[in-house]
C-alpha cells in the first residue's frame, strides 16, 4: 500500500508553564525542532498545568518539552504529570524539561517520570538526538 505510505512524524509540544515570561529559549527550540523535521506545537506563554495537559492529550504528542525558568518546576511538573496520567497519556509521552534546574531537583523530576532535563548551554543537537532516539512510537 505505497499510496498509504506511513507518514510518521514526531510531534512535540513546546510548553511554557507558569509565570515566567521568557520564551526566547522556547522559540529557539521550537524552530530547531521544526528544522529537524518535527511537528511542533507551541503553547504560548503563561500556561497553567491543566492547559498543557489538555494540549498534550488532544494533540497526541510523542514529546512534551516543558520550559521553566522560574524555579517553580517542583510544583508545576508534578501537576502536569498527574494530569497526563488522568487521561492515560503519561505512559507514551516523552517528557523533557528545559531550563534552570538544580541537580537535586533533577533527580526528583526524573523519579517522577521526566525523561531528561536539559540545562542552559545544552547543544541543540543533543536535545534533538535525544528526542529522535526516545520519542515513543505512535
Amino acid at each position, binding site marked *: 500500500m505505497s499510496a498509504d505510505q506511513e507518514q510518521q512524524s514526531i510531534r512535540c509540544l513546546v510548553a511554557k508553564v507558569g509565570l515566567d515570561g521568557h520564551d526566547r529559549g522556547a522559540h529557539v527550540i521550537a524552530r530547531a525542532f521544526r528544522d529537524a*523535521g518535527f511537528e511542533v506545537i507551541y503553547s504560548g506563554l503563561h500556561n497553567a498545568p491543566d492547559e498543557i495537559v489538555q494540549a498534550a492529550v488532544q494533540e497526541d504528542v510523542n514529546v512534551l518539552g516543558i520550559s521553566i525558568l522560574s524555579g517553580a518546576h517542583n510544583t508545576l511538573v508534578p501537576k502536569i504529570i498527574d494530569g497526563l496520567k488522568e487521561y492515560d497519556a503519561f505512559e507514551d509521552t516523552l517528557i523533557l524539561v528545559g531550563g534552570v534546574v538544580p541537580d537535586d531537583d533533577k533527580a526528583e523530576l526524573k523519579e517522577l517520570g521526566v525523561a531528561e532535563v536539559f540545562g542552559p548551554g545544552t547543544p541543540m543537537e543533543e536535545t534533538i538526538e535525544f528526542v529522535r532516539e526516545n520519542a515513543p512510537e*505512535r
Partner: protein
Amino acid sequence: MSGEPDHAELVEDLLAGKHRALARVITKIENRAPGYRNLVSQLHQHTGDAEVVGITGSPGAGKSTLVDKMANYYRERGETVGVIAVDPSSPFTGGAVLGDRIRMASNVGDMDVFFRSMSARGTLGGLSTATTDAVKALDAFGKDKILIETVGAGQNEIDIVKSADTVAVLVPPGSGDDVQMLKAGILEIADVFVVNKADLDGADRTVQELREMVHMQQDNTASLATGHHGAGSTGGHGEDGESDDHDEGEETEHWEPQIVETVAKDGEGVEELVQTLADHADYLEASGLLEEKARMRYAEEIRNLLRDDVGTLLETEIERRGGIEAFAQQVLERETDPYSVADEIIGPLEDCVDQ
C-alpha cells in the same frame, strides 16, 4: 491487508467519548498507520450529524482568534466543538510549527473544545488530505460543530470546499489589492465573507468592495450555471437584496454570499456570524443542497481513493518490470517512447477490467 490491526477497541473508546482515543485515532489517520482505512470505515456510520464550517483567509487575518471566539459562543449554548487547524509544513524538512493553539484562550481547560493542530504534510493546498478523515473522527465522537481552519493562500486553497458544508473567508480591511489578487480563487468559495478587524480604518471600503465583487460574481456564476452557490438573492437576507435574473426553473431560494463584520479579539460580531452560518446551514438543508454536496464530496472521495489505489497498483507493477528508471533509459535510447511504455504497463490491467 492481513495482519493489520482492526482497532476495534480504539473505535469503541472513541465512541464512548474518550479524548485520548479520539486524539490517537486522528494520529493514526495523519500517519496513514496500518489499518487506518479500516478505522475510518468503522467510524463512517457514526458520522453525519455535525455541522462542518471551514474558515480560511490570508495569514494574519485573525482566523484563530475568531475560531476561538466562535467555539466559545457555541460552548455557551451548550454545544460541543471540534477544531482542526491546518498549518503549512516545510517543504524541505517536513517540519512545522503549529501555532494556532496559542489563540484558543477562551476555551482553555475546556475539554469539550477539542482542538487539534494538523500539518499540511506536504500537500500544496494547505489542507492535508487527512483532514476529511479527521473531521469524520470528530463527527463520530459526537461534536456538534466542527471548525476547520486553514491558511488561504490562493487558488489551491479551495480544497476546503471538499470538507466543509459552509465556508467562511476572512478578509482583513485594507486588503483591496489582495482582493483583486484573490478574486479568481479563494473568494469564489465563500458562503460568508468575514471582514475581521472591522474596527480598523478601511473596513467600510473593504465591505463595499466585497459587495461589488459578490454582485459581479453573481453575474458570472449565473451565466455559467454551475449550481455552486447559485445566483441571486436569498429570501430574507440578501445583503443588498439585488436580485439576479437567473431563472432556469430554479424556484428554490438562492444563497448570496453574506458579508459579516467582526472584531474577533473583542468577540464583536461573532453572534451575527454564527447566526449567518446557521442560516446557511438551514438553506443547505431546505434546498436539498446539503445532501447534494455530501454526495458530491463522497463521490470525489471515492475517486481520490481509487486514484491512489490504482497509482499504488501501477507502482508495484512498474517495480515488478524493473523500475521506472529502466523504462526511462529505454525511452532515452529511443528504443521505445513514453506512450508505448504506458500502453505496455496498463495493457494487462485493461484486459482484466474488460473481462
